[in-house]
């Protein structure tokens, strides 16, 4: 059970994030939902690289012993960097949307086929 805790956290983060994206109307909350999904996926990646009782994979002045996998950490880092760019882009779009629509309600956007 305790070993699976990170995976439960991953599932919880992704489900909460999806809930926010699906059922919240505020654009900022949708973005927060996406950030939550992203954290979930990142946590999943990092968890995959962990080995029981391992130390951080730093070669310099290492005390010895088994190390956890460095590759998933590099992947997570890349994913975080991309996440920063995406979040910044989304938030700046929201600023523009607020200027045009005067509202942050997701239902106000679009509806061009109605």
């Amino acid at each position: 059970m305790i070993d699976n805790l990170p995976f439960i956290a991953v599932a919880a983060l992704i489900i909460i994030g999806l809930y926010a994206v699906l059922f919240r109307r505020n654009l900022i909350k949708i973005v927060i939902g996406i950030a939550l999904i992203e954290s979930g996926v990142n946590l999943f990646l990092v968890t995959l690289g962990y080995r029981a009782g391992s130390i951080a994979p730093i070669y310099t002045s290492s005390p010895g012993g088994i190390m956890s996998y460095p590759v998933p950490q590099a992947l997570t880092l890349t994913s975080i960097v991309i996440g920063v760019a995406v979040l910044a882009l989304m938030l700046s779009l929201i600023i523009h949307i607020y200027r045009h629509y005067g509202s942050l309600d997701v239902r106000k956007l679009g509806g061009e086929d109605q």
Partner: protein
Amino acid sequence: MKGMSKIVKTIANISFPFIMIYGLYIIMHGHLTPGGGFQGGAVVASGIVLILVAHGSDWIQTKIKEHDLSLFESLGAFCFILLAFLGIAFGGVFFTNFMVNTNLPFGQIPIDGAANLNTGGTIPLMNLAVGLKVIAGLFAIVLVMAIATLKKEESA
């Protein structure tokens, strides 16, 4: 955006150099310890954002323009890709670490995991380039957002 109170400004001014040093340290030691261009750049950028929040975007804009920041950003990316291209010229393959095991700066090979700054080949240089790009990029994002909200306040 308007500046904040004198206390905030003073504390921000005092902590600013420490944040800078810390961020630059993270960039510089990217090939030895956790960290690197992005992480250190984010730290430095957050230090600049601290100044931005404390002094207000008007004051910052008298010091640096968003236009120049994008130039720095391009420069950082250009240096990065240039180093990768030099890999073709000297090592035959894109991204080759051609500086390792030479007498160039950062050219040594570390012995037994000892922490030696003078190692890593092109990696520290790439970290610097990425750091430059991230500092300029993140700062530009926050600055533009600050200006955008400022315009909103004025029009409202």
